[in-house]
């Protein structure tokens, strides 16, 4: 069974503490993506699960069995490396067979598994070629094939798409997702690309500086980021951040004043805030709508037309940060024009500037 439990995991390289008290539960069959900026510890975490690094403290259990003292081979995992790590002197067939031969599988069983994996990945024509004679995309498939033939409890992917070009990356992304649907096996996937995380994951684990910032489904994280970091990391372009103050309405509703006559409505729990409290208000570019008279005055600087959508870059008077507004289709405001914009209902995120945590929501 491919469920995984990490408990109070810590890892140090010498004096450098790279993972801090990581606790995580992954259910059997889940597709989990570890995402975060370079150096956040996501690859180290994956390598610890694989058994390629040992832990400084804490425990790892796969299928209820403590695997902390087991070698990589004994953990029933398979890994796809960023570099693919194919054996350059062996044919594709030998690459796929190597692990099974080491485990003393019967010849017929090895051949059957290779045939099946080759069919799934459409690499039958290349079985007798060397890795050097394959394109990047084909090598990638072979690397995945080498993992499939092992029939592991957990697949581990370490940034497997980063060496592919953009078109191939989109295609391979879809194929890995399809593979997961067919195999129903637990997959753990490391990437720094938030688009991969959003599109592939059942569950995303956001890491920063060796700590888990938030765990949840892609849309949970997108709609309700727990803190400013998660809010900024997921979603492209980034969430706009405005400085503001809390105002409490007559009906105990909580409003945010970002410096204009128009106040922004939020669903923050009124019992947790005080009037006048400084906050950061976050609105994703796509969650700004053009308003008529009532709205924030947005001065256009320039825009980028992508055909199906347009990003308008500009400033809100009195706010220092640049603000990006998304509009569907063609839209060409003149530089210097003042547009009125308003966040969509329920799409305003409010954060405490000191702790960077999202403020508690009230019952709407």
């Amino acid at each position, binding site marked *: 069974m491919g469920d995984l439990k990490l408990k109070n995991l810590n890892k140090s390289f010498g004096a450098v503490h790279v993972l801090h008290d990581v606790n995580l539960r992954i259910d059997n069959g889940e597709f989990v993506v570890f995402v975060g900026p370079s150096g956040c510890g996501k690859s180290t975490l994956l390598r610890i699960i*694989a*058994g*390629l690094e040992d832990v400084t403290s804490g425990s790892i259990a796969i299928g209820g069995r403590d695997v902390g003292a087991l*070698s*990589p*081979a004994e953990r029933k*995992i*398979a*890994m796809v*490396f960023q*570099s693919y*790590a*194919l*054996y*350059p*002197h062996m044919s594709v067939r030998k690459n796929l067979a*190597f*692990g099974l031969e*080491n*485990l003393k599988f019967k010849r017929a069983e090895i051949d059957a598994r290779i045939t099946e994996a080759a069919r799934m990945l459409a690499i039958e024509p290349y079985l007798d070629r060397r890795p050097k004679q394959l394109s990047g995309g084909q090598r990638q498939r072979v690397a995945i094939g*080498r993992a499939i033939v*092992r029939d592991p409890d957990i697949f581990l992917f370490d940034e497997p798409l980063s060496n592919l070009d953009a078109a191939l990356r989109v295609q391979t992304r879809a194929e890995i997702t399809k593979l997961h649907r067919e195999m129903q096996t637990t997959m753990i996937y490391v990437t720094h690309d938030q688009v991969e995380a959003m599109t592939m994951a059942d569950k995303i684990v956001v890491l920063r500086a060796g700590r888990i910032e938030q765990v949840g489904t892609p849309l949970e994280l997108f709609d309700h980021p727990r803190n400013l970091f998660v809010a900024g990391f997921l979603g492209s372009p980034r969430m706009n951040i405005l400085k503001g103050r809390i105002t409490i309405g007559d009906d105990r509703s909580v409003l945010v004043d970002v410096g204009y006559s128009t106040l922004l409505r939020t669903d923050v729990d009124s019992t947790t805030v005080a009037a006048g409290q400084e906050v950061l208000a976050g609105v994703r570019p796509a969650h700004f709508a053009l308003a008529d008279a009532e709205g924030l005055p947005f001065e256009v600087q320039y825009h980028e037309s992508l055909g199906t959508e347009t990003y308008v870059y500009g400033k809100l008077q009195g706010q220092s940060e640049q603000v990006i507004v998304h509009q569907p289709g063609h839209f060409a405001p003149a530089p210097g024009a003042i547009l009125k914009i308003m966040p969509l209902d329920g799409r305003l995120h409010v954060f405490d500037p000191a702790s960077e945590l999202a403020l508690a929501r009230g019952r709407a």
Partner: protein
Amino acid sequence: MARATGLADRALDLVMALVEAPINAIERLIGRGRMPYVFLAPNLVLFGIFTFLPIAIAVGYAFTGGTELLISDRPFVGLDNFRKLLTCESYLVPGSCEESLFWTAIWNTLWFVGFNVAGTLLVALVTALILNRAIAARGFFRAMFLYPVLLSPVVIGLIWKWFLDRNGLLNVFLQMLGVPPEIFLLDVGWSRFFVVVVSVWFHMGFYTLILLAGLQAIPKDLYEAAAIDAATPSRTLFRITLPLLAPNLLVVLILLMIKSVQIFDEAWVLTNGGGPGTANTFLVQYIYQMAFAGDLRLFGLASAASVLMGLVLLVLTLVQLRLGKKVES
């Protein structure tokens, strides 16, 4: 410090000024396109005088007889020297050959090459595999194994001679253990054994270095993939490490083979000129003795033996290069 730098700068300026004028003149004379050959010329001349010319002269001498030094004074004898070297009732029995010492030297050289190549390759490979791991004081060990390479062959020969002498360190040590002393260098078996040991000890550092460079070029993630693929250490060695090290092993094999055939100086010093008897007389020593050490200076015979040895080395190298291309593809 600043003044010294200024002085060095001024010296450099002076040299450049002196060189610039003639270089510019040559360039005007022959054109820029031919300038590379001008810069190559000094080296080519030296190479020609000290390498290519002697080869040509040796080939010439191989067809002459007598004991005169100048080739103009020497009678042309055609293939006589080669005929003399190659006339044998059985090549397996040096005593049946007209030039029996030549064949003794050939057989001595062959067994030396066999044991020395196998021994050095094995020791260098094992050392490189160990030094490639994250062991303590790795830098120190790397330097230590390379150190003998820096010594002169004569020094190596003398050090080991003292060590193996009747009153040498080894016998002192053996006597402490209650083992009767042995005059190693006067025993045919022991002396041959120690010629190989000394040669392996002397040269292994260099080959270790080549193999170590090859080992470090193998990507670390292949070993991680092998670990996940449940490969045992021995299977990792034989299925991953050695196949990927094959190009370096081939380079080592070729260099080692050529170097082994050329065995002379350290063995000559160690065995007091090839002894006991002719047990350690090798091909190069035979050539040296014929040309320079005997009562008669048989330059023709020595040159003919050199030419034969050169041909054998050439064939060996070509075969190995051909094999190497197969290994790569």
